[in-house]
């Protein structure tokens, strides 16, 4: 079984789920419009601790199923690209 290749920016940009996630980010942080696919969401403090919980729950809602406990680690949410790869990629 071959591991999937990293998603292209086009693939991420065309994802309706990622569009919803990015729109959600903008509602909680007006400066999120400048967030790129590889911006470090944690180091750049794009979200505070409470927003991070709500963000995780929103991702669950968008993907239609819970995120497994083993995947609730900072590196899985480090960037929008990581979020797409880990949770939203078909």
């Amino acid at each position, binding site marked *: 079984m071959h591991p999937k290749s990293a998603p292209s920016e086009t693939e991420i940009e065309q994802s309706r789920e990622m569009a919803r996630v990015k729109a959600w980010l903008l509602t909680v942080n007006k400066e999120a419009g400048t967030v790129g696919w590889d911006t470090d969401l*944690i180091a750049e403090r794009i979200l*505070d*601790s*409470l927003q*991070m*919980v*709500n963000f*995780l*729950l*929103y991702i*669950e*809602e968008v993907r239609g199923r*819970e*995120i*497994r*406990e083993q995947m*609730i*680690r*900072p590196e899985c*949410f480090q960037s929008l690209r990581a979020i797409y790869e880990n949770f939203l990629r078909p």
Partner: protein
Amino acid sequence: MSATAGGQRPLKDLFQRLIDLSVDAYYNPYKTFVWPEELPRGRYWMSPELLSVHGTPWMEELPEERLHVLAQWEIVNFLSLSAHGIRELLLHVLQCIHTPGFEDTSEYFHHFIGEENEHMWFFAQFCRRYGGKIYPTKRLKFDRFEDPGLRNFLAFGQILIFEEIGDFYNRSMERDGRLPAIIQQINHVHHEDESRHMAMGRLILKHMHEDLRSSVPEESLRALEASLRGYMQVVIEAFYNPAVYADAGLAEPYQLRRDLLAHPARARFHARAVERIQGFLLDTGIFKEPVYASEERAV
């Protein structure tokens, strides 16, 4: 940590008193509880006044059988949150025990670690026996402070906030005759032990803050406050778990969570749940403003 509480009884004496109380109150949790084979359905397993829908239209509109099911999952959620919270606090206390700066508190920490481990055990027992699971935690943990003094203060602040909010629920349920006896008992036993932990936690936090006030810039104190404020909200909002709503058969669980959190009745409940700990944090100057403001009572 400064040795006296502003000319009052030395801290060491206060710590020793709490240690003596822990020794006198020691019990075997593995023999204390009699676990029924199953718990009665068609009954509340959590006080209805504590349910996350209480005071909202959902409380009136949901049939009582559905509220019973919701209560069954909400108590599993509460005890799951408690178990996860204990893990986090144990990790931190284990890093501190018998290290520089904790010479006076380490003897007490042994009792704390033992008791908290046992609490985690009986919470997990309940969740697995009667819920078939422990709800996972949905919190990402990452370190915002590099300075060890600030990190320690934050950790002990989080521990105290978590304990005091949990105690609000324990005190409400320990004598609620509507609930099965095992649930009353778990809440009672936990409350008894936590009374000592919270007394200790308040002493530690107050003195840590006094030390920090004389050694770190105001900007750092405000950053600590912001972190603790956020943590308080995370704890309160963890009681609104979409997985619980889904398990209880309620529609649109994520939207339900948002709607409940936005309801004014829930804001009033949150203010009651944090009243004691928030009062302490305001009195000590750790908080400059409340996170959840109480309604002003009419005279």
